[in-house]
């Protein structure tokens, strides 16, 4: 029923870099969602970053990393009733390729409604449905990268590939700022 997906005239405010203000209570259920189409070069950067994050970090209980691809309503179950959603995505923000971009709270659905995201339609349907049913994520942040190429291809461009570690770190910082600490796997092993 909801179709919040009319691309809006409004352009989401785009800020670069800075981390979120800390909040009081640590979110219990957290999803890091990488989205994008991995057969269109940099379009898939969110998925690549999510997988890299999962590979390099030990995830505490309650934190899930999902390769969302270009999925839509199939993500409802995973996102319903969570406390924090961190979206990783390619963002066309008219910056130089590889630049990190950050959106928070209400900017995120606006972003998906605009055509800044190449696959906006499905995710904003999901967020709208969750909103209406009272299961929307309590807190929402998106970190993304300006893509260089959206041509057909399974590989990221070298420029965007180089920014993946920074994107992963940005996601880790967003989580840390909200009291969710991820331990790098090497460190996790050392502790064990």
């Amino acid at each position, binding site marked *: 029923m909801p*179709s919040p*997906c*009319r691309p809006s005239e409004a352009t989401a405010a785009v800020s670069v870099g800075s981390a979120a203000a800390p909040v009081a209570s640590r979110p219990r259920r957290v999803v890091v969602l990488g989205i994008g189409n991995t057969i269109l070069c940099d379009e898939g950067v969110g998925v690549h970053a999510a997988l890299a994050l999962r590979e390099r970090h030990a995830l505490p209980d309650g934190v899930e990393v999902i390769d969302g691809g270009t999925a839509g309503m199939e993500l409802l179950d995973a996102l319903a009733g969570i406390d924090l959603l961190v979206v990783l995505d390619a963002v066309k923000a008219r910056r130089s390729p590889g630049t990190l971009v950050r959106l928070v709270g209400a900017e995120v659905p606006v972003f998906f409604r605009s055509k800044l995201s190449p696959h906006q339609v499905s995710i904003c*349907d999901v967020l709208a449905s969750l*909103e209406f*049913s009272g299961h929307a994520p309590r807190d929402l942040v998106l970190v993304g990268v300006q893509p260089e190429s959206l041509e057909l*291809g399974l590989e990221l461009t070298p420029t965007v590939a180089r920014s993946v570690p920074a994107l992963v770190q940005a996601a880790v910082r967003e989580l840390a700022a909200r009291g969710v600490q991820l331990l790098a796997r090497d460190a996790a092993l050392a502790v064990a």
Partner: protein
Amino acid sequence: MAQRITIDPITRIEGHLRIDVDVDGGRVKKAWSSGQMWRGVELILLGRDPRDAWAITQRICGVCTTVHAIASVRAVENALQMEVPLNAQYIRNLIILAHAVHDHIVHFYHLSALDWVDVTSALKADPDATARLAESLSSWHGNGKFEMRAVKERLAGFVSGGQLGIFTNGYWGHPAMKLPPEVNLLAVAHYLQALDIQRRANKIVSILGSKTPHIQNVAVGGVSNAISTDSQSALGVERLMAIKGYIDELADFVKNVYLVDVAAVGAFYADWTKYGAGVTNYLAVPDIPLDTKGTQFALPGGYIENRSLDSFKPIKTFSDEFWVKGVAESAKHSWYEGSAALHPYKGETKPQYTDFKDDGKYSWLKSPTFYGKPAQVGPLARVLCMLAAGHEPTKKYATAALDTVSALAKTKVGLDAMHSTIGRHAARAVSCAVQVDMLADQWNLLVANIAKGDVKTYNKPTFPKGEITGQGYHEAPRGALSHWVVIEDGKIKNYQCVVPSTWNACPRNEKDEAGPYEASLVDNPVADPEKPLEVLRTVHSFDPCIACAIHLTDTENGSAITVQAK
């Protein structure tokens, strides 16, 4: 003088579809359906290992992930003339059916109901009267007056909080909205319940597919699920019982809510049985294989010409020549080189963009034909083919739906009404009821087979030297999907996907005949050219999803949806 309306893009779908209509005297005179982005996944696959194709093709589309995985492994297995272990067939079948049930529920309640349901009107409803109406229609536990009161309250809070904006493209108060307030409120209540229930279908897919949305468990030759009754990590009793629980909940909702709601909405919109028939050649492929070779199917398929069920010709096996030889694709009106209709094994993907030419090339979609004719695919084609094949469960649910419509509309509504915009919704609900029962059947077959001691799930493929060809079809939620592969020395030499939305959303073919979307829009009423709700109703009734038919490109320019009335 005809007025041109351009809707670009059509929302509430995946991908990017543009529809143009010429309207004269409040009616559509001519229509164009245009896929606005280019698909080139075939090119990515060239030279690759055929065993990897399924994982790549399921990235084509976020809505139809599983379907491309299934069609792809079937194509390669067909090329190798492989058998697939029974357990693997049953596990794939369960995934296929759970995905279909999920897709149909979500399509009706969450992606198309807004075309028929006026949310603001629901605020005027008497919740107690809504509950009485609902309880007269079905025994569903979520139909009581307290439920309806709570839903109305939530909706009121939502609207007064200014949040209705998330339902953009809702044409509130449009003259074509006809449901009484109580029915609108009922639809909103079931919308919310459907949000909850659809998650059960998703859970089945994720238990069996190891992961969702992109399943991980299929392989050329079977599935990678290990079956064991005493291992925690394998598919065992506990997981199978969880799946059974979800199936039962889904069946309750589909039969007592979805099927009933579609009949009720259909009864109030009986005039929409007169619009939207379009192309009445119907094509559905059989699915839910019951043997290792793909010669017996639980869900029959075939071809019906010119709406005559008597003309039905079945497609019988995964290698049926009637199917394999019948498919061709033309690029005469598509932005590719060439115009002749080519068989998918010979298919080419060479872009030739020309801008939108009304009488020339105007779409990134090719135009598929079956023995030279356009054909409609999807739930309506599926249901009509199953009826023609004498499929008893389909007869049962189709009769039940039509009886409910007739009772509510106080006039006899017969099968002929199905060839229409609203008929496609009804057919989808009938199909969903059949498939949710089939889900239980497949579960029983899997459990019985495991109980016999058979735990085999995989046969290893071996690739010969030289060239082989194969096609894999799958009756996906949106209809007949097929992948066509040419393999040389174990590497992919050619790959073509003929997807459901290409059959339906295609431009004119090599003989300039309109495709199903285009034909179905002709004669549709349009009350207000600025708000072409009626056009959206007909297009949405096909459950358009063209992310797989086409691909995304530039999005920086053109920030707004345009409904241009010129």
